[in-house]
């Protein structure tokens, strides 16, 4: 992790149009407190959208919950849709705050980007971001010292965007090969279908960065199974996948082991393909 405080912070000027829009959204809320949250959420999304549009990223600001009158009225959201990739959650913080509270709604988020406000509110600073896969399920706050610099956001999104078409085809092929009446394969199918393609890409990207190649299968399989990197419990690393069982009735634990083994193989195969297209080992970054 890089402390973003030590790096270049991008300043985005807030246009009058944006402030008017934020005020309009805030005026629809139940009370002034909620109005204020919506005001800053709106400006945070607007600023990130401004930057990403300038960076030639395709965005759909109207497609998010934060731009939906009813949803923003009940949910604390600052989501920005990146078509075909997922959503970025834009989290406002005020100068002096040292952490952000993660929102209740986290589905389809690929990253959280932190936007700092300070008086006079005519501009904001993009402090940095954190990939959603790096956040454990129970995490409710993120310290600002854990943020990655904004310049890495581009490479992160680019890697996901480049890998989606490849993985889309691979996963579709895998799913079509999995038999529904086989308990092991049915479980593997469920594991894969429970995640979006961009989520799988992000998960494997993390594994690729944090593991030795010899551990890709084990770590990747574990991540695809949905257990966080801090939770162990995968048992024997050297399980070989086999559908043939001597007993006609497989025990639940046997099925579980077979599912893990199958996911290990899938993860290893996908990681090798991803490493090839990302050119990992070389200096991939466009910057």
């Amino acid at each position, binding site marked *: 992790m890089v402390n973003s405080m030590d790096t270049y912070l991008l300043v985005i000027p807030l246009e009058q149009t944006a402030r008017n829009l934020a005020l*309009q959204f805030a005026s629809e809320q139940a009370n002034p407190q909620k109005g204020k949250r919506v005001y800053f959420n709106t400006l945070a999304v607007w600023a990130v959208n401004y930057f990403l549009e300038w960076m030639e990223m395709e965005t759909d600001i109207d497609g998010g919950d934060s731009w939906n009158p009813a949803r923003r009225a009940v949910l604390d959201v600052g989501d920005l849709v990146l078509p075909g990739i997922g959503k970025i959650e834009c989290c406002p913080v005020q100068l002096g705050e040292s952490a952000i509270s993660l929102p209740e709604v986290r589905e389809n988020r690929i990253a959280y980007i932190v936007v700092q406000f300070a008086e006079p509110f005519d501009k904001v600073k993009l402090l940095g971001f954190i990939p959603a896969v790096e956040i454990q399920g129970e995490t409710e706050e993120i310290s600002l010292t854990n943020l990655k610099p904004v310049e890495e956001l581009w490479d992160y999104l680019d890697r996901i965007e480049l890998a989606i078409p490849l993985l889309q085809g691979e996963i579709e092929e895998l799913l079509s090969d999995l038999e529904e009446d086989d308990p092991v394969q049915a479980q593997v199918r469920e594991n894969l279908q429970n995640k979006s393609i961009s989520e799988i890409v992000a998960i494997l990207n993390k594994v690729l960065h944090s593991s030795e190649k010899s551990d890709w299968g084990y770590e990747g399989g574990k991540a695809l199974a949905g257990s966080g990197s801090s939770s162990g419990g995968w048992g024997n690393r050297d399980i070989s996948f086999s559908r043939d069982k001597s007993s006609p009735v497989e025990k639940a634990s046997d099925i579980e082991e077979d599912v893990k083994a199958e996911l290990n193989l899938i993860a290893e195969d996908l990681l090798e393909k991803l490493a090839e297209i990302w050119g990992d080992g070389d200096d991939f970054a466009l910057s």
Partner: protein
Amino acid sequence: MTRHDTPVEPLAGLVPVAASFNLLLPPTGWELKPISLTLLLLAGYSAIFPGIIELSRCHPNVPVNTDEQLRQLLQLLKDSQEGSKEQERLKNQLCQLIPHLPGIRKHPYPNIDLEEMMQETYCGFLKTLSAFLRGIDLDNLAADVLRTRVVQRFNKTLKNKVYDQYRRMQQQIFTVSFDAPITSNRGENFEAPEPIDHTTKNGIEQLIEREQAQNKQRIGHKLWQCIEEDPTGELRNSYPNEKIDKKKPNNPENRRPRPDANSHVLALRLLLQDPPDKLSKIARELNIDYQTLNSHWKRTGLALVKEIALKFGYQPEE
């Protein structure tokens, strides 16, 4: 570039090649048949690109279809061997073609040497070209769509270089008004009566209070009222079941309902309260397993709230 009725003489070196494939049209003896480019490419005469590009520079109305050239060049690149001389040659041709593609950004940026940026952009663009090509179906993508994607990718890479350059110089990109993206127009007609200083915290709070007071039909107010009252009881009647004995299997005999942790309580404390409670705090207070509560809230509670919001969103304005 557009097609033009007036034929232009091709480069001298091209004529004998075209003649050998019977691609020249009779009246002039040097005008090429429309299919020529494809056939020449298929025959491996991809080296004509620099010539055609050069020609188009000299004659702006030359009938050059850059979209089709681009597609064919990318196909050759995709098929070429990684790191081969042939691939290098094709990459050079691509770099010569790119500036001629409509939509390529060539705006100057303050304090930035655009020529240098462009050179760096070519390197960055080529570095990830094979990854980019793997995600593209060259056979089935329309030529203009393909060109748009290439142009977008090139422009993205250029912007990344420009951003990086400003970062290195510790200069802000947006301190001056240039190259502002097109943003949503909504809100432009919303004029708050002045004067309240909207650049201070107090000013913003005053503005919001004033606007809310004037807005009698606030969707947020009505929606919160609906959630607070829960007239149909759908939120109150939605609650988790927890395991009685955590070590035993999760069957009906080993589960008990927890109506005290219902979705209504959670919605009030997590969404409507300011500041909202943390789910972990509620779980501790209610003495319920965090995972059980979290999974109920994420799968059922939030879904119900979103459903209510969705229904509300479709209600006509009173």
